[in-house]
């Protein structure tokens, strides 16, 4: 046999390479565009709402954080930490499954797009192309999804860390010419068949298959290397994860995968959802007695000891992601990944106990390329009832976006928060 087959190739590099990244084996091509804004990477950490009374860092001032019990575990990030609260969703995040947390638009919104997708589109439009424009990971597979949106359509995160790993690091580079040709030929045939089917459908049926065709084009782009990141160095993908035993632990793995994807410059935007507003089963020793985040921790415990413990555990995961970012060089240069990343902890509701979004809260961290205004003793911003979509706009602004048309609710301010960044 004269051609190197995929199987032969797999034997040479090990079976894991069938699903493993080849980024560690090759130098990445130079970037098509380095960046748009000060921050090069946006990492969204998305959770349920909480109990404001227990979360609020009472006594904090603009340049000094006084941690509450819930927020205490964020203290390792103090010098790069901004806590924001008292922002209003203006009704868009007032209840279960309300879609406003990341979109600024409520149930009746007609053009919902979550901030991660909005930013990814803007980056692409500006020529900042990476193999994967954005990652949406986590949540709970058994539940209806209402957090991430694109074209007013809710998106399902990738629930399985194994699937996420395969999608992110699926073998797209360094493959044999024979396999590359085989893949391209197969995709050509798939495209032909999609057109055949589309011709028999009405416009809405065709629209669904057009999403499929877009997805194929994304693979073709990765195969052709036309969407290379701005790496230039090497990165390690780690090992393919095992199946998770519970959803929150899966999200921990997802968070790690997102950071690794950044380190390979595979994407610039990633969002990881921890839990779901309707059902999140928690069996974590540090949290306490097992139960459902919503029914047992938010509505049945008083005082909310387990909710506080869970918030502290979430804070630890947020810090762990920051720690990993600090340990990795930024593929774009300019220090560590942490230096170039904006981390945002956002929520689907403000006060989950009362089911309202009139007091939305955020945690900002990361070096963000210098975008965030920081203080050695942390910063605390009282939003004063401003629209919470301004915090989301701040995330976009850090990534270099200056026009927020098409995002959020046009009836409310769509500008970055005052005094958060520069």
């Amino acid at each position: 046999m004269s051609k190197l087959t995929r199987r032969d190739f797999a034997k040479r590099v090990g079976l894991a390479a069938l699903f493993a990244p080849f980024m560690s084996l090759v130098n990445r091509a130079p970037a098509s565009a380095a960046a748009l804004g000060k921050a090069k990477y946006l990492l969204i950490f998305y959770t349920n709402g909480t109990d404001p009374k227990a979360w609020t860092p009472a006594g904090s001032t603009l340049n000094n954080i006084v941690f509450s019990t819930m927020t205490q575990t964020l203290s390792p990030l103090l010098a790069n930490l901004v806590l924001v609260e008292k922002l209003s969703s203006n009704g868009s995040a007032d209840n279960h499954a309300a879609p406003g947390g990341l979109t600024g638009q409520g149930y009746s919104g007609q053009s919902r797009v979550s901030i991660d997708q909005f930013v990814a589109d803007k980056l692409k439009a500006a020529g900042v192309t990476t193999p994967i424009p954005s990652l949406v990971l986590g949540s709970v597979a058994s539940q209806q999804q209402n957090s991430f949106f694109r074209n007013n359509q809710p998106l399902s995160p990738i629930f399985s860390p194994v699937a996420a790993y395969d999608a992110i690091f699926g073998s797209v580079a360094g493959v044999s010419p024979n396999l590359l040709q085989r893949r391209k030929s197969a995709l050509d045939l798939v495209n032909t068949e999609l057109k055949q089917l589309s011709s028999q459908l009405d416009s809405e049926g065709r629209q669904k298959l057009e999403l499929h065709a877009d997805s194929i084009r994304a693979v073709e782009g990765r195969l052709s290397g036309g969407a290379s990141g701005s790496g230039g160095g090497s990165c390690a993908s780690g090992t393919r994860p095992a199946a998770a035993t519970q959803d929150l632990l899966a999200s921990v793995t997802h968070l790690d995968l997102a950071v690794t994807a950044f380190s390979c410059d595979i994407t610039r935007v990633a969002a990881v959802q921890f839990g779901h507003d309707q059902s999140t089963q928690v069996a974590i020793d540090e949290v306490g007695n097992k139960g459902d985040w919503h029914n047992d921790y938010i509505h049945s415990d008083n005082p909310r000891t387990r909710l506080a413990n869970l918030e502290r555990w979430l804070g630890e995961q947020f810090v762990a992601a920051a720690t990993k970012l600090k340990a990795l060089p930024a593929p774009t240069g300019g220090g560590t990944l942490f230096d170039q990343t904006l981390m945002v902890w956002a929520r689907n509701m403000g006060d989950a106990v009362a089911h309202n979004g009139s007091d939305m809260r955020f945690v900002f961290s990361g070096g963000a390329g210098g975008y965030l205004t920081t203080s050695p003793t942390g910063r605390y911003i009282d939003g004063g009832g401003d629209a919470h979509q301004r915090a989301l706009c701040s995330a976009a602004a850090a990534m270099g976006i200056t026009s927020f048309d098409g995002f959020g609710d046009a009836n409310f301010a769509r500008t970055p928060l005052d005094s958060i960044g520069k």
Partner: protein
Amino acid sequence: MTSRKLGLSSLVVLAVGCGVDRPDHGASAGGGGSDAGADPGGGELVAPACATRGPRITRRLSNAQLRNTLQAVFQDTTVPTGDILTDPVVLGFKADATQATVRDLDSQLIMNNAEAVADWAVTKKLGQLTSCQTMDATCPRTLIQTLGKKLYREPLAQATVDAYAALFSAETSFADGTRAVISAMLQSPYVLYRRELGTLGSDGNYHLTPYELASSLSYMLTNGPPDDTLMSAADQGHLTTTADLDREAARLLAAPQSEVAFGQFVRSWLSIDDLPTRAKMDPSNRLTDAVRAGMLQETVSVFMNVLRSNAKVSELFTATYTFMDQNLASYYGLGGASSTFQRVELPANTRAHGILGEGAILTRHALADRSSPVQRGKLVRERLLCEEIAPPPPNVNTNIPAPTGNITTRERYQEHSADPFCNSCHQRLDPVGFSFEHFDAFGHKRDQENGQPIDSTGTLAGMTSGDVALDGLDSLSTYLATSQAVSKCLVRYMSYNAYGLDHCSESSISDELAKSDGSVKSIVMAVIHAPQFTTRAAD
């Protein structure tokens, strides 16, 4: 084509005073990231109108259906599968025809798995797939036609065979040719989607082809691809009449695979699918993984028995038997079971009759360590009566008072609902859930809680006949057994699960059921006999 969004307009909104800006039933789609290719394009995917029959559509297989298809085609459960397709949850089911898509990173995962299957098949199954391995003009085409028909669930068009033959001939060995063909086929939209396109008939409607009907029957009744018998019937033109459909449906319903399909339906319908992963505070540590699995099997077995024995819908609620093995019987504190699952007659006064008295329902619809009248009432309203319970409006006190002294669950919830505002909604929930109070959060019967006697009286308010007084779970089950609303609700969910579209062919199904024996099976057959099953509207 007119279309509508699955949303508030299609729902029964219950309570005055519960009104808030409401969620729609538009669902999640796709897998986890934006596409890297062209512009975002497109817009919101909305469900088509389907009063009598809907438009021609393609329906993406669910992840389970893809797995079942691969296992059936290769006749091997070790074929590589995994979390390849992301299934949107709509109305509690992973069956939506509109929202299930291939988008974003899905194609990458599909390609990964297709190549893994191709490598596996060439290594393990080549001898099974073909009787020859020569690079001549015939052998590869035979492989392509044989395997392709199974995966596509219809014969391949000549042009398609030619296209695969070209892929094959670009390789230098039979193994690599096979590898190329399999990896391409498994990415084909003809494999990933069920077609419901049909051919234009003289009546102006599109009539599904025999092969499309074979797939519709098979995925509805077994959650897998057509078997050889069904494909043979399609080949021979024996899948065109109602009698043909009835014959094949009867055969498939009797097959073991139908329990796979209806088991998933039951778990979704009753919202018990996630019982295995529910976080429970079980001080006895007796709620093991095996017990949870047994509870699910119990409920599915009772449903299958009612279905296959042509029993009426009412028997789901009044059955004085169940199915258990020794492990589950021991958990319940009952005897009479063996090491394998078998039918067991319930001793008198040991538990409530029917599915509502089963562990899966009682354990899943409860808190981690306590019963929940709210969740149990919500189950009855939403899953059995198809009513919609609005979420609590913002800024209401949702705290359930902490347990104090010897207070019972009922007393805690009565305190919670004392607020007239809360009670405007909870009057439809809690008094229904109170009738379950003889059963704790683990499915065990109890006569006391915290030393206090159980009071399981309640009310099922707002029925067409007025408010229904309840005294224990059997009284609720007795009412539901004869409720037309329950049968109608079961029709809605069963037809949605089959069609992937809500409220399709309702009047036709209703007309047929009015003349039926009221059995669960009659609902299944009415769904199959309805216009939406066999025809599509002209564009």
